[in-house]
């Protein structure tokens, strides 16, 4: 009887101990990379991000369809984003969470219109990591993607040729 009572309690305690660091980091809006940025935005602006279901699967499909041209796609969407955003603060927050290796490529900020765009890049051998934060009115999107220019270009050219062939046959 005693053993049956203590086993679930022990398992629950173990789970709490194992996940405690994750909860602490999340509560502080901490962590780095994509999750770090999304968590920071959630905790700073008190908004909830909608993670796209089956995004992992979609990322694998995108990778296969482009022969590795596009990989590691991650998307978080904030709908009805009503909090006022200070462009400088958002930029600083994203830079801090992304950490070293990421360089800001484009920043477009509007004081009145609630429009903010940040694009960061991270060269990684032949691949280029791109991180995009885009606020347009009441919608804020966070996207991360890894691109291999050569492979993606091959795929684009392939589809261009398909288009041309289709045009010729329809004529």
């Amino acid at each position, binding site marked *: 009887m005693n053993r049956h009572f203590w086993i679930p309690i022990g398992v629950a305690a173990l789970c709490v101990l194992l996940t405690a660091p994750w909860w602490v980091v999340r509560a502080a809006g901490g962590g780095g990379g994509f999750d770090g940025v999304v968590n920071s935005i959630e905790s700073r602006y008190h908004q909830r991000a909608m993670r796209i279901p089956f995004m992992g699967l979609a990322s694998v499909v995108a990778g296969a369809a482009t022969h590795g041209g596009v990989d590691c796609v991650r998307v978080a969407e904030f709908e009805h984003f009503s909090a006022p955003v200070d462009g400088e603060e958002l930029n600083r927050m994203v830079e801090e969470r992304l950490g070293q290796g990421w360089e800001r490529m484009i920043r477009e900020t509007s004081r009145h219109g609630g429009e903010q765009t940040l694009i960061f890049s991270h060269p990684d051998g032949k691949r*280029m990591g791109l991180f995009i934060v885009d606020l347009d009115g009441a919608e804020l999107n966070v996207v991360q993607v890894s691109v291999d220019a050569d492979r993606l270009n091959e795929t684009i050219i392939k589809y261009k040729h398909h288009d041309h062939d289709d045009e010729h046959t329809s004529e």
Partner: protein
Amino acid sequence: MKHRVAAIILGTAALVAPALAQPSPSPLPLPSPVEKQLAARAANVTEVTLGKGMLDFAARFMDNNDKDQVAVKQLIEGLDGIYVRDYEFDKEGEYSMDQLEQLRQAFGTPEWTPMVHEHESKSGESTDVMMKMINGEPQGIFVLDAEPKELTIVLILGPIRLDQLSELKGLSGLGGLGGLGALGDAAKDKPGKDKASKDKTDDKAKKEGTQ
């Protein structure tokens, strides 16, 4: 003894490795304090910073079968970086002449040659174009375009052929870069070097005349 040598080697490696691991400094400038002041007052700010890595990456997307894209590819592949800042203000007088002067002074070194200095006192608009010349070859261009409610800074570093600049028209989304196309067109009308040197002397004469 062996342990001591190993410890010294490891210690030295630990000290040197971080320095070696640091990426080479970008030729593009860090935002100056003036730019931060301007950004704080502007209603709309656009900042584009494309380093060599990003330009090489972008060049890989150019279609080798398209003549125009090949020209753009040739142009951007050799560049070290493109740096654009565009500040739009709600009203006039949000930036001072002192701030403009500070931006110009950053390029007041001997390797930068003023090509154009235009100032319209009536409209308050001014345009500065400077060229970085190394061994007689253009290695960079700086454009500062000031309008009463808008300020644009464009800096392109790396070997530049003026006649190729018109290819950047297609990049009109990048603030003042599109405007550089006109400069390229002007250079296309005459042989590149002659035109560049003529502009330089004309503008120096113009500048001396105004002083």
